[in-house]
């Protein structure tokens, strides 16, 4: 068993092509076109009801697109030969029979692909469930169930791994474990697509983010791009009157005053602000980019989209 060692970044492993799904005339996923590349962790983000799970279910052949295509290695899921050896998936929600043991659940999957007990034991070992493999899934904690779901995703040693909300219900150790696992899988050259609503977690894990809002694509960019887009400049000075003058001089920028000794400037840059402060004779103690977060960038993006759709609706 081995993954690809050389990664062609231009290679497309998952291809969504004008993917659309409507329920009773309402689009859940609306004309979504995205390519997912190998060797990185791609975060799939969006508010509840944005269409993330529906998209993943279409990708995995569990539900039928109204129009468009979701392709894996150029094929629809249903056309894949030995699908678990090409894509491993962990779905949100229950996918296991609580009356079956962890080992029996994995063996049920393994046997469809002529994989033996040895492979089952390997993945149990990898997710740390060897000691409880004979216990019924119904007796598992949420964290153990998540680990078993990930074991199931890895059973065929696939080049593509799709995980829907894998960190749900995990404790700190579990979250760190998932983060390292995803990083490791991507570094081995695999394609990793992870949906999550935990943005701080995605900022740490994802190299690329695909953001969905109301079924439409809002962004498909490197994580850093979305994070820095939101960055403002933090200016701190003991000279409060000077800060007010600086604030007045910076027209065109959005300025907030989080505390009496500091202003947060959005829409300008550190160079301009520094020059202006020197010109106005304002003493500065700090002039630094405010730590941007994926959450800020994301909220910005989603709000912008909501405004847009609201305006569109008013017309």
């Amino acid at each position: 068993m081995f993954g690809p060692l050389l990664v062609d970044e231009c290679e497309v492993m998952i291809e969504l092509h004008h993917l659309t799904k409507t329920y009773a005339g309402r689009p859940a996923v609306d004309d979504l076109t995205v390519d997912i590349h190998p060797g990185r962790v791609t975060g799939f983000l969006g508010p509840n009801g944005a269409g993330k799970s529906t998209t993943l279910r279409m990708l995995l052949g569990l539900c039928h697109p109204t129009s468009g295509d979701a392709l894996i290695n150029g094929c629809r899921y249903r056309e894949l030969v030995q699908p678990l050896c090409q894509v491993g998936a962990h779905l949100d929600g229950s996918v296991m029979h609580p009356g079956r043991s962890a080992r029996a659940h994995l063996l049920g999957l393994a046997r469809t692909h002529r994989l033996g007990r040895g492979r089952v034991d390997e993945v149990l070992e990898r997710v740390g469930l060897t000691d409880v493999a004979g216990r019924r899934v119904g007796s598992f904690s949420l964290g153990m169930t998540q680990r078993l779901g990930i074991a199931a995703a890895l059973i065929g040693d696939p080049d593509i791994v799709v995980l829907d909300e894998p960190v749900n219900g995990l404790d700190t150790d579990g979250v760190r474990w998932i983060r390292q696992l995803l990083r490791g899988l991507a570094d081995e050259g695999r394609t990793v697509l992870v949906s999550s609503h935990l943005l701080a977690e995605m900022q740490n894990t994802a190299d690329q983010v695909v953001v969905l809002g109301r079924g439409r694509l809002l962004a498909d960019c490197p994580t850093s791009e979305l994070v820095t887009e939101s960055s403002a400049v933090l200016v701190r000075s003991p000279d409060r009157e000077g800060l007010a003058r600086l604030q007045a001089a910076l027209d065109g920028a959005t300025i907030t005053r989080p505390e009496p000794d500091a202003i947060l400037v959005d829409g300008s840059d550190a160079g301009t602000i520094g020059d202006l402060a020197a010109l106005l004779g304002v003493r500065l103690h700090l002039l630094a980019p405010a730590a941007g977060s994926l959450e800020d960038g994301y909220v910005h993006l989603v709000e912008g989209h909501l405004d847009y759709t609201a305006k569109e609706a008013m017309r």
Partner: protein
Amino acid sequence: MIPVLHAEWGKLCSLRSPWICLVAAALLVPVTAYTLANDFVYDIDQGRLADGTTRPSLDFLGSSMQFGLAMFIAFTMLTITSEYATGSIRSTLLAEPRRVRVLMAKSVVVSAIAAVTGAVVGLASYELVAFILGDHAAGETSAIAVLARSGVLVGLASILVCGVAALVRSSVGTLATSFGILVGMLAIPEPLGPWLPAQAGADWLSGVGAGRALGVLVAWAAVAWIAGWYALERRDA
């Protein structure tokens, strides 16, 4: 196809509930047959029936088999309905996205087990009834015929239930629908009755118009299975 069969067999073996249903079926049929045969003999002993009254042992088997079908239905449907109830159908369809294979594998595994169990239980119940009736038994049916008739009835009923389960998806709904089709429809009289699976099942067991009865059973099982397959292919999981 072999790996999927192997997987479905393993999945069935790793659960407890289907086997409880199967054991229940294996007990319910002979117990019912015993009770019915015993009542008959008792009525003769008490003089409520004429002393020389006889009845074919097969009569008692027919009623008890149809009663026991409820448990065979439960055994069969669990392989499908419990997957919908627990969400594990999604794991199954990820591992084998060609849905026709999934339904075929499930149907083959459970119908084969149900048919073999049905055949053995049928013969055992028949022998029990014959023993109870003693001299009051009219005529004799060969063991092979009893085995074959019981096995085929339960096997075909099981295939029908697989179709209904894939169509209905819920356990209670499947049990009610299947029991209605396989047993409840006995209430419908001629000329329609013999064309329905309940009466056809009774006819097939008793050997009255067996050819037509078998045809009717096969046709209903096929229609139900194809309807279930169609629904499984079309629906979102």
